[in-house]
């Protein structure tokens, strides 16, 4: 997909990978709506993109809130036009330090699924119909290695990402042939606040920079037509150490 002039939504857009994606997409000429909960940080990110000559808008909403879904879809389309690219980047780890499943409150698992799985389902449901009608669109799910391999203390998060990957595959199977493409991307381990929350003592030299990973994801989006629908790809820029070693 050629990004010039296209409408894009990036959730979790205030910092880390989301902010880097917003900036990379705006550089390619996309019109970007960034969604996040914290107004101040989000507006700062939008201001930076605008200062660099890109188009970006702030939408202060929580993807885990059912009431927010049509507000996000409507406000974003009003500001950037029909949505051609939807990147589900927002996610929560649940309470940190990360807990064993036996120590996880059921409500915390529910909240993790609401933000990481049900929210993306709802937002895609609100937008993918218009994409399929117009015969084009790309939906990206930001996944994790924890959705494939089981790590102690990553239960709630890992379960949500495994389900997100399967949601991605099923969307791809159902809408194959309509022109709407679905892809799941494992960004690898990045130097972000989220990573620091999960693994405070990680050696940052082993972590990828969000801007490098964002550039790889943008390339995946630009070539989405040549990938099988619903595919999962890895976009990690650095070679990660074993995660088990880090959380031990």
């Amino acid at each position, binding site marked *: 997909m050629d990004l010039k002039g296209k409408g894009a939504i990036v959730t979790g857009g205030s910092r880390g990978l989301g902010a880097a994606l917003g900036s990379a997409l705006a550089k390619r000429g996309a019109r970007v709506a960034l969604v996040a909960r914290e107004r101040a940080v989000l507006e700062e990110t939008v201001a930076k993109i605008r200062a660099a000559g890109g188009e970006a*808008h*702030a939408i*202060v909403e929580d993807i885990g809130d059912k009431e927010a879904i049509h507000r996000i*879809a*409507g406000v974003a389309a*009003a500001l950037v036009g*029909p949505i051609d690219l939807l990147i589900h980047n927002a996610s929560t780890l649940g309470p940190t330090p990360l807990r064993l499943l036996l120590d996880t409150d059921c409500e915390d698992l529910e909240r993790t699924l609401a933000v990481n799985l049900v929210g993306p389902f709802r937002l895609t449901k609100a937008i993918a119909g*218009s994409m399929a009608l*117009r015969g084009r669109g790309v939906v990206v799910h930001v996944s994790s290695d924890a959705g494939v391999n089981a790590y102690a203390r990553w239960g709630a998060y890992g379960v949500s990402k495994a389900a997100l990957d399967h949601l991605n595959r099923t969307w791809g199977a159902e809408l194959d*042939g309509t022109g709407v493409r679905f892809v799941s991307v494992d960004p690898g381990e990045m130097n972000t606040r989220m990573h620091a929350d999960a693994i405070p003592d990680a050696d940052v030299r082993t972590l990828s920079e969000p801007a490098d990973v964002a550039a790889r994801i943008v390339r995946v989006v630009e070539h989405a037509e040549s990938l099988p629908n619903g595919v999962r790809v890895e976009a990690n820029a650095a070679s990660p150490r074993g995660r088990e070693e880090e959380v031990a």
Partner: protein
Amino acid sequence: MSPASWPRLAPLEERLLVVDPDRDRFTAHRVRDLAQFISARDLVVINDAATFPASLRGTTAAGDTIEARLLVSRANTWRAVLFGAGDWRTRTENRPPPPRVREGDALVFSGGLHARVQRVSQESERLVDLRFEATESALWSAIYRHGRPVQYAHVKAPLALWHVQTPFASRPWASEMPSAARPLAWEIVLALRARGARFAAVTHAAGLSSSGNPRLDAALPLRESFEVPADTMRAVATTRAAGGRVIAVGTSVVRAVESAARADATSGDTDLLVNERHALRAVDALFTGMHEPGTSHDALLHAFAPAPLLSRAYAHAVANGFLGHEFGDSMLIARGALSDAS
């Protein structure tokens, strides 16, 4: 006809009346049967406007209660129809008139949204142009947080935003749901596509169906913005050239496509009135809701079928418990839809 008073759970089970002007006949079905009346050569055109929460509550400078129902505009001013005290629970025609406003008056809507009256229409004092202080994200976010979907007294409870979106919603241009597309579940869209039928989008700013003022109601529909993508215009031309039918989903699609065909433009504002005197240039058939005789939506149907057939069909629908309004049953008016056997 009784209104559907709430969204129903299984759109494919809703009723469908198929009217064939060529055979001067109609038959009753369910929406799930739609595929048998649409051929592989047909093009189905859908309005992809999302419905925004266009009803804002506020007060005038004098402290009087006011409700504004917004009409989207591509400029920075918004047209609005004003109402007085009360809300949708009271029938529109029984609502007290809005407090009188003049050019330059300040209005404050919920969420602290400030607006100024730019112009009061010659047609009616209820029809004004508003300019909001907020712009872009701040304005749209405030409308989405504090506005309510426009609804009428036949609906039994307050509607949520998701109740008034079709399965194709994109940009928020519609003040009322372009409801003809509402029962078209993707199950049926993908089935039609698999049989070879094609789909295309237009965006049309479906406005208000009632203003509460007889003079203004007589002038409905007001001028509305439309956009027909070049792809859609091309698909209309190739479909007709190949002997297929262009099937409009809803009256707003008829207005958009016929306006584009007349103006030879892909976007603009239209006050085109489609009725029995209108010779269709680009649309061949119509899938729409059940429209009450005498309304502007009903007048549009007469461009597709003769009045006696439409009244017989409507009477049959009433007698057989079809439901009306935005959550109601559907009608397909298409030449050649019914074979001699059906």
